[in-house]
């Protein structure tokens, strides 16, 4: 106690209710480790049940917090639980739950280390939960590493497969490189603003900072460099072109459930970080990041889509499609600086898109997992004639693919719609031009999504093997959840827009009235 007193350390006030989701999840993670230690080999499957229930259990306090509704800040404002954080925490937990459902049979039948697998998966989810609340460079960086490091290991989980090793290694090296770039950017910003707290950073970039009694205006060159580096760091995370090169190889080599996890949850975490940064830390530097996001969005969707056209492997196709979808999600970020309404619309668009995208993309991976259990092939050609012997799976996949393409009345349309809405709402030639680029891209994207549908519905059966596919219960549940959500959101978009509509939060305050 004496030492603390000397250092001027005050015990921070901890709001246990606000931290309850993270605490529950941590307890489940520890429990998983212990259970894995004591469970005999033949009952190891129970670890997946524990992981799944644990994720749902952690969602309960998220609900109570949402019902309570007060905004809670801790640790001097470095950790905030507001509507934004809660919506995304719920998204991470539910997406994590679906990934557990996808993994159950895969991990069990593949003879992988089950306990450790779920331990790492949940640790990564924990990192994402922290990310949603991080309002400080340090807590954000800790969150990023907490979510990334387990993911590197998960990508290399099939350790006797060289492709999986390559996947993990590539992901690790580029991820670390991105972290380094980002850290450098953060240090530059810290250097000119004297704070790591986002609100303080924003205030000081706006008005200059009071250091040693005199007002210092930040050097614009350093600020620009710092912001660009930080954004680039997260651009790696969301696999935005030209920082996407790790994604296709990692996605293809990693175990398929992990790919689903990376392409949905991990990507969403990257966007959450970008949103927090732009809205809370750098709202007054829009001249720096608006053009940056414009270019990133345009390049990401165009390149992702064009390369996806040439893919013959379904997972690789979904990898490029996921890059392209990331480009769509980046679009609204390019107009956040156009005033408060535009900022609110853009926030709604990104959050809505993330939710819808999670449902439809996880669903698509669920079908891929179910089908490859039988065909043992990731080629699109192996989906040929699927309709003849697995009409249910074909229908589900059709729903997911055309939802990804944004065809009403499937969920994807409302995601694309809100993005276009944000751009047109911002107004101006640049926003309209980006919207047109997005429109053209959604047409390109349709081609490769429809290509898979074509194979399933119109091609003859690939290997004349028409034994029906048996879908394991957990995959079936995942399909019902994601498929139901995709269709329901499409018909009643209000359900998801309610969560996306966070304009009342303090998020958009910096953009004037």
């Amino acid at each position: 106690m004496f030492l603390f007193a000397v250092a001027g350390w005050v015990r921070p006030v901890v709001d246990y209710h606000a931290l309850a989701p993270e605490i529950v999840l941590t307890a489940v993670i520890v429990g998983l480790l212990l259970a894995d230690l004591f469970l005999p080999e033949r009952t190891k499957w129970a670890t997946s049940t524990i992981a799944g229930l644990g994720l749902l259990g952690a969602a309960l306090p998220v609900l109570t917090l949402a019902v309570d509704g007060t905004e809670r800040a801790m640790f001097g404002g470095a950790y905030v639980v507001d509507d934004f954080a809660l919506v995304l925490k719920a998204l991470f937990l539910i997406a994590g739950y679906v990934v557990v459902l996808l993994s159950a049979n895969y991990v069990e039948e593949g003879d992988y280390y089950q306990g450790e697998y779920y331990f790492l998966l949940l640790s990564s989810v924990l990192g994402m939960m922290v990310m949603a609340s991080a309002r400080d460079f340090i807590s954000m960086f800790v969150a990023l590493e907490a979510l990334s490091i387990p993911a590197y290991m998960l990508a290399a989980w099939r350790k006797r497969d060289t492709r999986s090793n390559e996947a993990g290694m590539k992901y690790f090296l580029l991820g670390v490189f991105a972290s380094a770039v980002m850290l450098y950017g953060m240090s530059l910003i810290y250097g000119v603003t004297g704070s790591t707290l986002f609100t303080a950073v924003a205030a000081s970039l706006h008005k200059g900072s009071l250091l040693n009694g005199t007002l210092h205006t930040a050097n614009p060159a350093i600020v620009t460099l710092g912001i660009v580096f930080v954004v680039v760091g997260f651009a790696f995370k969301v696999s935005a072109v030209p920082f996407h090169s790790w994604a296709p190889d990692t996605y293809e080599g990693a175990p398929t459930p992990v790919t689903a996890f990376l392409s949905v949850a991990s990507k969403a975490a990257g966007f959450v970080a970008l949103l927090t940064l732009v809205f809370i830390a750098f709202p007054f530097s829009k001249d720096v990041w608006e053009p940056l996001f414009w270019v990133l969005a345009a390049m990401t969707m165009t390149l992702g889509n064009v390369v996806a056209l040439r893919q013959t492997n379904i997972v690789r196709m979904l990898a490029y499609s996921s890059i392209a979808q990331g480009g769509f999600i980046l679009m609204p970020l390019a107009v956040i600086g156009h005033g408060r309404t535009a900022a609110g619309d853009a926030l709604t668009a990104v959050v809505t898109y993330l939710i819808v995208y999670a449902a439809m993309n996880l669903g698509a991976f669920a079908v891929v997992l179910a089908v490859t259990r039988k065909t043992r092939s990731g080629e699109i050609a192996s989906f040929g004639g699927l309709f003849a012997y697995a009409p249910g799976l074909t229908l589900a996949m059709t729903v997911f693919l055309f939802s990804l393409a944004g065809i009403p009345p499937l969920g994807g349309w409302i995601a694309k719609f809100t993005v276009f809405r944000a751009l047109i709402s911002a107004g101006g030639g640049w926003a309209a031009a980006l919207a047109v680029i997005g429109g053209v891209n959604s047409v390109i994207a349709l081609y490769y999504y429809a290509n898979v549908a074509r194979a399933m519905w119109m091609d003859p059966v690939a290997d004349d093997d028409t034994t029906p596919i048996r879908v394991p219960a957990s995959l079936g549940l995942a399909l019902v959840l994601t498929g139901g959500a995709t269709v329901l959101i499409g018909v009643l978009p209000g359900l998801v827009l309610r969560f996306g509509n966070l304009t009342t939060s303090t998020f958009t305050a910096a953009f004037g009235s």
Partner: protein
Amino acid sequence: MHLTDNNWLLSAAVFVPLLGALVVMAVPKAYEREIKVVALLTALATAGIGVALLSLFDYGNAQKLQFFTDRSWIPVIHARYIMGLDGLGLPLLILSMVIVVLVIVYSWDHIPEPGNPKAFLALILILEVGMNGTFVAQDLILFFVFFEVVLLPMYFMIGVWGGEQRQYAAIKFFLYTLFGSALMLLGFLALFFKTGAESFSIEYLAAHSSSIVHSTQLWIFGGLFMGFAIKVPMFPFHTWLPDAHTQAPTQGSVILAAILLKLGTFGFVRIAIPVLPGAATTWAPWIALLAVIGIIYGALACLAQTDMKRLIAFSSVAHMGFVMLGISTLTSFGINAAMFGMVAHGLITGMLFFIAGSVKERYHTLEIRRLGGLLKQAPHLGWILGFCAMASLGLPGLAGFWGEFPAILSSYQPAKGLPVETFRTFMVVAAIGTVLAASYLLWLFQRTAFGEPSEEFSHHHISDMHAPEWIAWTPLLAAIVVLGLLPNLLFKVLDPAIVHTTLSAFKG
């Protein structure tokens, strides 16, 4: 009667087919007969709602939206569930309901390869949801959703049950339309924000769009134009049509020709012109130019075809050119003609595609060169082909005449502000188009129906018409005659709506 009386009828008209589709999907595949019965009953029930609508419709108030519903749907983006039926929507809604019934009757013993009536009929019913919905939606987002709902079923219908090049044709159809609708959606959004981000209701937008500066209006109209013109399709966006029509199964071709093409022209009349009258005036001469190019190009292309179905497909390009010419005059005369032309084209070209399907089924080819002597081998089928060819070329006394002739006439005196000389030139060119139409249709009839059956088929037994064909076709043939003799049945419903809704900004 209040305008909101019985407003559940429209929702029922749209969603009963969906219900039927779900039931069809739930019935096991082996029960083919039951599946067909369910599909037919659903279509009949929907048509029954159509009859109820016809009898409850207040014809004295055809310009007002009746059976009007306005409910909350997606509050966050101000999209509402608004449905209403006026004189513009009524004929097309009824046409859509009738065509679906007839198509399902025709499907009784004509399920195209590779079979699977369950999926086929479910798709037709889902198509009906989109078509009916488009004609009654009064909110742009609702309109957009229904407009797009038709894409998927049609894509699968062409791609799975189509001809040799089906996959190419299906994806081409899909990509073209999606490209148009993406730009159209941007146009809708721009309209919404430029009128104060209050509402997507068509009525509201029409009342508040005058505040948008003209140059912005022109851009927005451009977006809508792309969406609708590709659907129509207008030259030079028509290239998906011949492929889609030729490759689609008969039922798909009929629905495509009779209803789906109308979604585009209906979009102009329902949305683009009333909401952006100023931009429409600036765009009109260019639309008219593309329309007459379409008339001549379509007709010339018809003359060069060797395949009967492809010929009919190109004739659609020409006929829709007349419709667009009528619309582009921005006069009530021209738009009346265009709306009549839409219905007439739906009936006549729908019939022609039915006939082409039946010919293909009997001869296993549609190459005009190899056909001949239809009147000898299947006289009823042959005469019906002749009748429809006459109707299609615009013979007075049949429905086709009232779409084509007034459309040409209307371009003699376009709306105020449009270049009169230009439109009169177009009129002359369009008139030449009718001569070409007569030549390709008569030529088609001559080569397929007259003379002796060709060597190849002279020893084949070619059966004449079957019962499902009679049942499916008689209502269409009757409608062609009735509307030809009593065009006022349709005009009296259309005219008030056109004057008060489409052209409300052009009064005085």
